[in-house]
Structures are given as structure tokens and as C-alpha cells.
């Protein structure tokens, strides 16, 4: 039972952290709860579908379908997170100043939310399908002895959700002055970590060269199966044995999104300066 709880916890944690950050980042947008719930439900439904068709997906692209699928899901999530962060750089200050503004801003806020709904759905989809495969495998093979294992799975899900909620509650305590900066930074690092993971899947499928693998090895110092290692892996993409290509993807994503945020922010700053002069 304990083993099952740990396995499911590991799978759920990553999605829970994504949802926790996004729920906090969208705190000032009206009706976000419904959007997040819709993303979660769509992700769960998708997980079941992906689990059922795991064989077919895996067999696609001469046996490399799973890698292409995962890299694709991660790639879309990175684009959505990038879009959100860049959009927030130009509108975030207004949203923070007056949480309930006139129609236009709310409509814009909704558009940004629908993007984040997709990210939530994708995060649940990727981790959820593996959890479904694991749990149905137990139910199928252990027969009547599967009860405690499935109970362990439930414990794992609850523990993962608790971490996500803790992160969310903690972020809400950040003073408003730093709040959008903090969530923006978390989303930025989340996206960079996902880009690095996408690179790893493409390396595993032999579609990308690894360039120096591993580039360094900190697994003795901070193993990725330790609690802190797992948390940092989900939060900022920590990898104890990264391939050079993963670092290239990480830095490219980081630079591209930060650059976009800087550009989106510039006109507003210029206007402010003009206004005070």
C-alpha cells in the first residue's frame, strides 16, 4: 500500500504544483474556479482515454509515439505559459490595481484563463494517464488483493493535492506588491523546466542529439527521488543528470519568455514616464 501511495504521489505531484501556481496566478480574474475545474475534468477524461489507447499511441511513429506525444503536450504547455506571462506583463498591473474593471479587461482576462485551462488540462493529462495505467494494472493483476494498493493510490492522490494546495495557499500570502512578480517568475521557471523535459523525450526518441550526457551529475548531492528533489523537479525543472540539449532548451525558453515579457512591459513603462513628466 505504501509503495502504491508513493508511486501515485510522484505522478500527481507535478500536476498539483502546476494547478497550485496557476490557481494563484489567476486569483484576481473572476470565475476562475469554474475554468480550473473544467481544465481538471477535461484532463481526467483525457487521461482515461490516453490510458485506454496507450498501446496505439506507443506504436505510432515506429514505436516512438509516447515520446512524441509527451514532447508535444509539454511543448503546447510551454507556449501557453509563455503567452500567459507575456500577456500578464502588459495587463497584470491593471488587473492588480483594480480587480474588477470594465468589460474589456474582463474579456481579456477570460481569454488568458482559457489558455491556462488548457495548461491545467495538459498537466493532468500527462501525469494522469500514467496513474490510470498503474492503478488499472493493479486492479487487473492482483485481483482481490488489490484493495489496499488502490487505497494507497488514493492516499497518494490526496497527498499530492495537499502539496499543490499548500503551494497555492502560501502564494496567496505573498504581499500584493510582489505577488505578480512571484507568480510570473514561478510560471517562467515552470515553462523552462517543461521545455527541458520535452527535450529529454526527443533525445529518448533519438530525434535530438543529447550533446554531452550527462552534462553534470548532482544525483549524490540531491537525488531526484528525494522529497526536495521531486519538488524542485516539478517547480523549476531540477534534473540531477541533465543532457546538454536539455540545458539548451531550458535557457532558450527562459530567454525567449523573459524577452517577450520585457518587450510587452516596455510601452507601458514609457507611457508612465511620459505621464509623470
Amino acid at each position: 500500500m505504501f509503495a502504491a501511495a508513493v508511486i501515485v504521489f510522484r505522478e500527481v505531484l507535478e500536476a498539483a504544483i502546476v494547478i497550485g501556481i496557476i490557481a494563484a496566478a489567476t486569483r484576481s480574474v473572476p470565475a476562475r474556479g469554474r475554468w480550473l475545474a473544467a481544465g481538471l475534468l477535461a484532463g481526467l477524461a483525457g487521461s482515461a482515454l490516453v490510458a485506454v489507447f496507450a498501446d496505439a499511441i506507443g506504436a505510432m511513429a515506429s514505436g516512438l509515439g509516447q515520446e512524441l506525444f509527451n514532447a508535444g503536450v509539454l511543448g503546447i504547455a510551454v507556449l501557453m505559459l509563455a503567452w500567459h506571462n507575456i500577456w500578464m506583463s502588459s495587463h497584470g498591473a491593471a488587473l492588480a490595481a483594480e480587480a474588477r474593471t470594465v468589460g474589456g479587461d474582463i474579456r481579456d482576462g477570460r481569454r488568458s484563463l482559457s489558455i491556462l485551462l488548457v495548461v491545467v488540462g495538459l498537466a493532468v493529462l500527462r501525469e494522469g494517464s500514467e496513474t490510470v495505467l498503474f492503478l488499472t494494472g493493479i486492479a487487473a493483476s492482483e485481483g482481490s488483493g488489490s484493495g489496499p494498493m488502490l487505497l494507497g493510490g488514493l492516499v497518494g492522490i490526496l497527498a499530492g493535492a495537499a502539496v499543490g494546495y499548500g503551494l497555492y495557499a502560501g502564494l496567496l500570502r505573498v504581499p500584493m506588491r510582489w505577488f505578480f512578480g512571484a507568480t510570473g517568475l514561478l510560471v517562467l521557471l515552470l515553462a523552462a523546466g517543461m521545455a527541458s523535459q520535452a527535450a529529454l523525450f526527443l533525445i529518448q526518441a533519438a530525434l535530438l542529439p543529447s550533446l554531452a550526457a550527462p552534462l553534470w551529475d548532482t544525483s549524490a548531492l540531491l537525488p531526484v527521488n528525494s522529497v526536495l528533489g521531486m519538488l524542485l523537479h516539478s517547480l523549476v525543472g531540477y534534473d540531477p543528470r541533465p543532457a546538454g540539449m536539455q540545458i539548451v532548451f531550458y535557457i532558450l525558453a527562459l530567454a525567449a519568455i523573459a524577452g517577450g515579457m520585457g518587450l510587452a512591459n516596455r510601452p507601458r513603462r514609457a507611457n508612465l514616464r511620459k505621464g509623470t513628466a
Partner: protein
Amino acid sequence: MKRFLFLLTAISTGALAADPEFLLVIRDHRFQPAELTVPAGTRVKLRIENQDAAAEEFESYTLHREKIVPGKGSALIFIGPLSPGRYPFFGEFHEKTAEGVIIAK
């Protein structure tokens, strides 16, 4: 996008032809062979055949690989190029029995 995927597939099938292939079988939540020797310094193709009904997740920290192998299904994983040494792996879903090591020489 389709053309891009096609290109990727074309590149990968080109790579498939060149890399030496090795077979791992999962039966009763155990890997056979439990010790597999592969050449060092070149990329290697690993085919994993799961004869059990339950899905398994092939995982190795040192190889830096993780992949689901569906029940009664098979999966393909590229590893390396490895420097000579021992690289333990395990099945995450049945960690107690599903263990093995890849030896690169």
C-alpha cells in the same frame, strides 16, 4: 506541422537502421535478462516486450530514461552513448521484483 512530424519520423527511421538493437522481456514482473551487456560509446536501441497483463514503467536514474510499457505490449527506447560502467534500471510499477542492470563495455 504534419510535414515537420514526417521529417522527424524520417530522421528517426534513419537512426533506427544504424543503432544496434537489444531485447528485454518483462515476465511475472521481472526483466529477462536481468543483466544486459551493450557496447559503450554508441547509441543503443532497446526493445522492451511486456508479456504481463499489467503495464510497467521502465525507469533508470543513471540512464536518465523513463517509459511506459503497456501490458501485453512493447516499447522502444534509445539509450547512450554510454561510457563503460553499470547502469541499474527497474520497473517503477513493480519495484520489488523488476530489477536489472545494463553493462556498457
